[in-house]
């Protein structure tokens, strides 16, 4: 078991670098947790957006306005400071800033059509949404001001709010369907792809670098050990390494989403990630056979993992990616892994995604062996 032991020693030496990536995974997962969304909702829920209101006066008209807006918006408390407001808008903490000037109510009641100043993310759906509601409130009030001259503020308020207190009945196509986020488990499992791929490519190709070293190869060839035994021990060690990395990451994912463990999908997520682990390991073998030099390996590992994760929807949801990018990504197992997770999350059939990943695993593995053989022959010749 000399070869096996050596492999484990090399893994151990690379542990500090890899633990950085495990650390990043944990850090990002914790941040995602703090970003938690409501897990389940049934029936139709009116969308709410975040906004800020700065009012230089208060009156029944303005109180009514706020009341009406509160159906579709959440009021955030942000200091009236250009820097803070800009940042809040930019990072979508809020999407709408409403400023009510002094004497607005007076001018409004006098029919002077005063204006409110609105700052928003331009052309955002959320802006149109709030605009519609705000316009409706003020226009309704305006009709009363125009048609009932001298109407007092209190009556106006009552009439307008009464008129607006009606909601259109909304029916769901499938009444018992639940909506919204499916929980956080798919996110953790998606993100696992990045860390796992990097760690496995680095780990496996570093070992192969050592074994593909010509002098060591020759020395091994001279040793009284069958080459099958060497190869077998090598694969055993790398498989153990992959398996441990996978178990650790999958375990962490499950730990972070422990509230959702009872879901029937949990096993499917584990299975999907296991198959992904196989295909990633095959890729790592291929890279290890193709690339020489430690520097080159870390370059390839970084670019390949980041690249495939970005275009396959690990960092950015697949729904947001353009079709051409997704088409490109579908040549990568990562894409099918993420796709599988998405399907599992909605309890759909994910066997196709699973099969494709398996096919990738086999194809890359065979390719790795062929490339490795070719290289060996080149060395011998």
């Amino acid at each position: 078991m000399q070869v096996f032991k050596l492999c484990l020693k090399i893994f151990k030496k690379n542990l500090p670098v890899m633990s950085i990536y495990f650390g990043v995974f944990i850090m990002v997962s914790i941040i995602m947790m703090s970003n938690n969304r409501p897990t389940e909702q049934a029936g139709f829920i009116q969308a709410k957006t975040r906004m800020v209101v700065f009012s230089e006066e208060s009156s029944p008209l303005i109180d009514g306005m706020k009341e009406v807006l509160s159906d579709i918006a959440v009021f955030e408390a942000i200091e009236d400071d250009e820097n803070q407001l800009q940042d809040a808008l930019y990072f979508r903490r809020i999407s709408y800033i409403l400023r009510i000037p002094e004497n607005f109510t007076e001018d409004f009641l006098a029919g002077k059509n005063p204006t409110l100043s609105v700052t928003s993310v331009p052309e955002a759906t959320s802006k149109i949404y709030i605009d519609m509601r705000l316009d409706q409130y003020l226009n309704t009030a305006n009709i009363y001001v125009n048609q009932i001259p001298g109407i007092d503020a209190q009556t106006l308020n009552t009439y307008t709010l009464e008129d607006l207190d009606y909601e259109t009945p909304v029916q769901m196509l499938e009444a018992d369907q639940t909506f919204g986020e499916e929980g956080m488990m798919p996110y953790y499992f998606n993100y696992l792809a990045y860390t796992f791929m990097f760690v496995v490519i680095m780990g496996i190709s570093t070992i192969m670098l050592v074994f593909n070293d010509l002098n060591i190869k020759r020395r091994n060839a001279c040793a009284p050990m069958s080459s099958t035994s060497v190869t077998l021990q090598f694969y055993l060690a790398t498989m153990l390494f992959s398996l441990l990395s996978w178990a650790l990451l999958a375990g962490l994912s499950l730990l972070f989403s422990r509230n959702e463990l009872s879901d029937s999908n949990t096993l499917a997520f584990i299975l999907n990630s296991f198959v992904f682990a196989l295909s990633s390991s095959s890729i790592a073998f291929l890279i290890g056979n193709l690339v020489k030099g430690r520097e080159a390996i870390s370059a390839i590992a970084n670019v390949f993992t980041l690249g495939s994760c970005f275009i396959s929807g690990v960092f950015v949801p697949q729904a947001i990616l353009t079709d051409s990018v997704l088409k490109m990504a579908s040549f990568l197992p990562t894409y099918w892994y993420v796709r599988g997770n998405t399907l599992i999350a909605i309890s759909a059939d994910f066997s196709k995604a699973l099969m494709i990943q398996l096919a990738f695993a086999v194809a890359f593995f065979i390719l790795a062996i062929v490339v490795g053989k070719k290289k060996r022959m080149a060395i011998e010749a």
Partner: protein
Amino acid sequence: MFGHIFVYRLKVLLRDKSMIFWTMIFPIALATFFNLAFGGFSSQGTFGTIPVAVVLESDNIAFADTLEKMSTGESPMFKPDFVTPSQADALLSDGKVAGTITVADTMALKVNQSGISQSILKIFLDRYAHTTRTVSRIAAIHPESLQNMDLTPVTFTKDAPITTGNLDMTLNYFYALIAMACFYGSFFGLEEVSLIQANLSRRGARLNMAPVHKLKAFIYSSLASYTILIGEMMVLMAYLIFVLGVNFGSQIGLILVTVFIGSLAGLTFGSFIAALVKGDANMKTGLLIGITMIGSFLSGMMFAEMKYLVQTKFPLLTIINPVNLLADAFYALYFFSTYNRYLLNISGLLIFTVIFALSTYWVIRRRKYASL
């Protein structure tokens, strides 16, 4: 002597493939991935015409009129499709329409999911109902005024944009990326210090033996590194602006100044770590990558919202993170008409640079070593 050291240093650096990879190719590759991934991201949340199925159970001229108005013009709000109830359900379950409006005495809405498009449809219908209620109330209490009633909507809001730039959140990813690239320039600083220190490299020992002023040699050599770094940054910026079309606003001059200062900060950061931290080159490189990556992460390079979170919850972290200062300088330049925030960032960055440079000087001015 300047020309000799400078030219040879350029020659050496230009052949250092792994250096060029990490300081130029890697950021360009990352930018390309950002661009691929965020291609559809910047239009997220931007309003697009909502497709809707309309089932007419009874004629309602007033409603048809309103819907018509909302569905024409330059950027119509709805794209109605008049169909039978069963067709409507099919469209809805295929996700071809956001919802189905059933026109009867009272309007009804049928949807397949909760979302902002569906919510807009709902308040559109609400609005129709609300106006109907208003009109009937006035008819009841002031029937005489019904004749000259004007229902033309009045606009009570006016837009007051906070910035001339568009609030595209993906820009922040690129700003953080440039900052990261500048700080990857720290690899140059690391290399320069180990080349001048006899206790860090054999070539350093050799240089220490030459009749050359050590500090001068260091500055000449570092200038070559700086030149290469600036060159690489220019390639990156050109790639971002001309190939990927990332918008940096109009202040090209100040943007370049920012890149120059950022690169200098990165370079001196590397020399600072190389000079002050004990340990071998691998460990120092690891430290540089680690600090730069954490800095970029906190500046929102992986999740833009991270930057906001840090800014609002841990403001101190934004000040002591030079990567963020740099990324924020680009942000301030693009989004603000005044220079307060930009200057604040730049001063912070310059303070860091000066600290890095002085500490480096403090270490490398010593010419004799306790051990080699």
